């Protein structure tokens, strides 16, 4: 099923024409309503009339997270306060939070995009759908919630926390779909194991997972443990929230709602656009947003845009899985290391729980990487009960890591339950190097 075939299956020429028109309009809109953008364009000697087609986008300046923080709280808001009907804020762990105001039309487009995603996952009126993203300032909870209501499924606004109660509700209500972070899905599976809730007692069929990067291995593990099909749901609050892009049944990349969010891939160092298919930093321009439109916003997410048509019939462009964050990327002894690479190795080891921590340090001017993993209590056995056997396991893991990362890492095996559990986004890196 396709929610809006008019937009999701538009011909490429029509889409580009629509994008061009909308881009002109949004540039004109921010020029007149946001001093930040007006000054930037004036400095570059650009007027909204210079932007006529979607190809003109490369003339425009970028917007960064720092611009959003510097203009805290309402500096980039384009609509008058009387038109704003909701305000979200992103986590402000490294400074001011990012404040995003939405008009009524923004919320309606967001619900439409979310409905497209859910329909692509096979969710419909007969589903009972639990939203287990945090409700509140974070866009995940309310964003997914409105989409579930739009498609007409019954929404269970479970939010995060109180996981035991939630696990029982999933069983008792016959919940068929869930939206949450992939790490929360695993935590939920663990909680169900602990409560003795088995796969044949639950009816979960569809999972919409996002808000943090995850791997194919993680998808397999979640699917096996919860008995559902897991779909990627991508979004970020600066652009809208969940459903900037979504996977279809083919699960080969996520379709971008590009009639509303125009994607580009740039080289994070030179800032030049990269040719189709190459991996770089994902940049979005909101084409229709009223509350807080952004022009060429640098997401810091690394991915590629997939060329070619999708067998599902949708024509909107697909993005690959996120391969890392341009700012999560660790440079260790000159080698680029992404936490997601470590995760992919951890998930191949049946002895370890799907959790890890990277600790980077600099000792005697040499970078060191330590990877901590947790033993799974159900796998610990009489054959693992000597330091020699644990040593051997550490060596096997270290060798796999080295082949993926190209640098050596020290491995530390921890007792079950000692690494931080996460009900939201998880912190997986501690960088102790004092480089700045």
């Amino acid at each position: 099923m396709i929610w809006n075939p008019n937009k999701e299956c538009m011909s490429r020429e029509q889409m580009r024409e629509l994008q061009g028109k909308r881009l002109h309009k949004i540039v004109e809109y921010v020029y007149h309503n946001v001093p930040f953008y007006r000054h930037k364009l004036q400095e570059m000697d650009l007027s909204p009339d210079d932007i006529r087609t979607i190809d003109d986008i490369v003339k425009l300046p970028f917007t960064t997270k720092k611009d959003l923080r510097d203009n805290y709280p309402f500096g980039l808001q384009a609509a008058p306060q009387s038109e704003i009907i909701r305000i979200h804020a992103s986590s402000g762990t490294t400074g001011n939070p990012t404040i995003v105001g939405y008009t009524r039309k923004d919320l309606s487009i967001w619900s439409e995009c979310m409905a497209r995603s859910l329909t692509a996952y096979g969710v419909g009126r007969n589903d009972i759908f639990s939203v287990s993203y945090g409700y509140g300032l974070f866009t995940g909870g309310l964003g997914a919630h409105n989409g579930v209501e739009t498609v007409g499924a019954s929404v269970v606004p479970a939010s995060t926390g109180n996981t035991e109660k939630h696990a029982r509700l999933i069983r008792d209500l016959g919940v068929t779909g869930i939206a949450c972070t992939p790490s929360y899905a695993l935590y939920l599976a663990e909680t169900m194991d602990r409560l003795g809730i088995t796969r044949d007692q639950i009816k979960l069929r569809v999972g919409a997972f996002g808000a943090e990067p995850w791997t194919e291995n993680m998808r397999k593990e979640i699917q096996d443990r919860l008995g559902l099909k897991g779909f990627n749901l991508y979004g970020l609050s600066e652009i809208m929230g969940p459903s900037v892009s979504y996977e279809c049944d083919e699960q080969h990349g996520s379709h971008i709602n590009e009639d509303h969010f125009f994607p580009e891939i740039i080289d994070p160092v030179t800032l030049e656009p990269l040719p189709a298919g190459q991996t770089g930093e994902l940049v979005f321009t909101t084409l229709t947003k009223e509350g807080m439109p952004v022009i060429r916003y640098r997401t810091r997410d690394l991915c590629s845009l997939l060329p070619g048509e999708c067998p599902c019939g949708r024509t909107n462009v697909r993005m690959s899985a996120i391969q890392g964050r341009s700012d999560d990327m660790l440079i260790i002894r000159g080698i680029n290391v992404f936490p997601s690479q470590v995760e992919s190795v951890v998930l191949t080891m049946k002895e370890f729980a799907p959790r890890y921590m990277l600790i980077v340090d600099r000792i005697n001017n040499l970078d060191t990487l330590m990877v901590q993993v947790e033993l799974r209590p159900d796998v610990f056995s009489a054959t693992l009960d000597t330091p020699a056997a644990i040593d051997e396991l550490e060596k096997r893991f270290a060798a796999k890591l080295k082949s993926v990362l190209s640098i050596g890492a020290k491995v530390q095996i921890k007792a079950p339950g000692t690494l931080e559990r996460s009900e939201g986004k998880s912190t997986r890196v501690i960088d102790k190097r004092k480089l700045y």
Partner: protein
Amino acid sequence: MTIRQLSIFIENQSGTLQSVLERMRQSRIQIIACTIADTAEYGIFRIICSEPDRACSELKEAGVAVAISDVFAIELDNQPGGAADVVAIFSEAGIGITYMYAFLLDGRGIMIFRTDQPDAAREAIVRSGLRCLGEKDLPTHV
């Protein structure tokens, strides 16, 4: 001929041993003998205790990495050379000892052995005529 031993993976961190022992107290499990194989980062806590099966399943339920293995408990002659006599029967038969520790039971010395050649060890012990304890020989409850 063998007795069951629990092995528990614990972190080298203050409080971790305590929490395992508290769990055993709550489960009313009595420890008869124990030892720790320690490394810089973790330890493997080995325990001979009452009701090893129940202890193992209750600890596992609490999320502890615990395993059961079979070990030999051999009684020593209480005089100089007693331990050497016991180890000699293994070395003469070419059997490797994975680890060992000892404790006193009613004034008698008992040595616990783990080997990865249990069948050969069993034969060697029978041939030697040494006394090997079974679980029924252990004080099971206070």
